């Protein structure tokens, strides 16, 4: 069931039935045509948002660095070291690191280890939902070059081809101390104004998207009814 109206022929191979253009009846009875690929997926490109005033930006960057809200999304085995990080032994709350459950409210995304393709899709969606300026802290050697899973068919090798990464913390698995050091490094970068991952993502959006589309072939949203 290939839809000929769609421009990108390559994508058509993976088109599911629910992604075809179809007529839908609205609650008030009228019939409208829906193209799920364009209507249900956000086609707006992210915009580059440059800082306006340098002096104020320096102050704001300080505030952003001292208040890192981490998204509580354990993507890999590195997430086993997140509980020690926020408990009495290491207590990252002292340094302004706090956990938030929803991507809208968090600024730091800890990619805790290897990313399976299925998770990568969620990671990209989550990353795009976060509000900029946003930072990515990649944990473990598997995000750097694949690490242990360099020859696995289901885990990516280099995270920086899919989303911009600010700080890598190497090791398998990195100790909580290393994670704290990573947070310190991230703070330095933010205070220097070098942590502009969100802008980089917007600038090189096509490159990132083409890399992502190379491996994530099923872009379907799950079923929702709200």
């Amino acid at each position: 069931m290939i839809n000929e109206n769609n421009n990108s022929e390559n994508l058509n191979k993976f088109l599911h039935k629910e992604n075809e253009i179809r007529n839908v009846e609205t609650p008030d009875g009228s019939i409208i045509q829906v193209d799920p690929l364009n209507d249900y997926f956000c086609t707006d490109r992210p915009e580059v948002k440059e800082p306006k005033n340098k002096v104020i930006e320096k102050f704001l960057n300080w505030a952003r660095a001292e208040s890192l809200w981490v998204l509580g999304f354990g993507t890999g085995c590195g997430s086993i070291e997140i509980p020690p990080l926020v408990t009495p032994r290491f207590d990252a709350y002292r340094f302004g690191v706090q956990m938030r459950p929803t991507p809208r409210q968090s600024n730091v995304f800890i990619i805790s280890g290897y990313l399976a393709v299925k998770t990568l899709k969620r990671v990209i969606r989550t990353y795009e939902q976060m509000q900029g300026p946003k930072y990515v802290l990649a944990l473990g050697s598997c995000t750097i070059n694949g690490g242990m899973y360099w020859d696995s068919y289901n885990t990516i090798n280099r995270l920086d081809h899919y989303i911009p990464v600010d700080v890598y913390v190497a090791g398998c698995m990195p100790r909580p101390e290393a994670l704290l050091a990573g947070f310190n490094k991230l703070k330095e970068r933010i205070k220097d104004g070098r942590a502009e991952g969100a802008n980089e993502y917007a600038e090189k959006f096509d490159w990132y998207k083409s890399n992502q589309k190379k491996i994530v072939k099923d872009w379907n949203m799950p079923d929702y009814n709200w």
Partner: protein
Amino acid sequence: MENYIEDIKLRFDVKDIVSRRDNLSFITCEKEKTIALITHMKNNLGFTHFVLLTAVDWIEDGLFQLTYILNNPNAKIDIAVRTMISRENSEMESAHKLWQQVATYQRELREMFGINFPDSPGVTDNFILEGWDDIPPYRRDFDTKKYAEETYFPRPGRETNDPAEYMKKKLS
């Protein structure tokens, strides 16, 4: 252990009986009789605990080996039932009516080995992979290294040392 094996031998045509430990034996059964055998073992011999179902790819012989490991919690013994099915057109009778979790195992086998289990509930749903369009990855003829190098972006500078070569160089 012996009397269970004897009982099975009486009723079913089993071969290749290997006794690995006192409490673990492997038996091989024909494809058509396998479900009947494990039903008998469950209902009459007390093998009520289903341990696992998995497949082994014997690509040289063109066969898949399916292994059902059953456990008798009272006698505390395990019997593994092996059955060989052909690699082409691999299809096996479903055992989901005996234990609830078997459907999950069959879902995984269908996805990872391409073994079909008709009638198993939800067997065609994605279990682990999403949008996979290559041959099922657990088959021996799928080269994971080649796939990974072509698909993901290997970071340059990674050296692969064959440990044997490396040790030879170091010791000489």
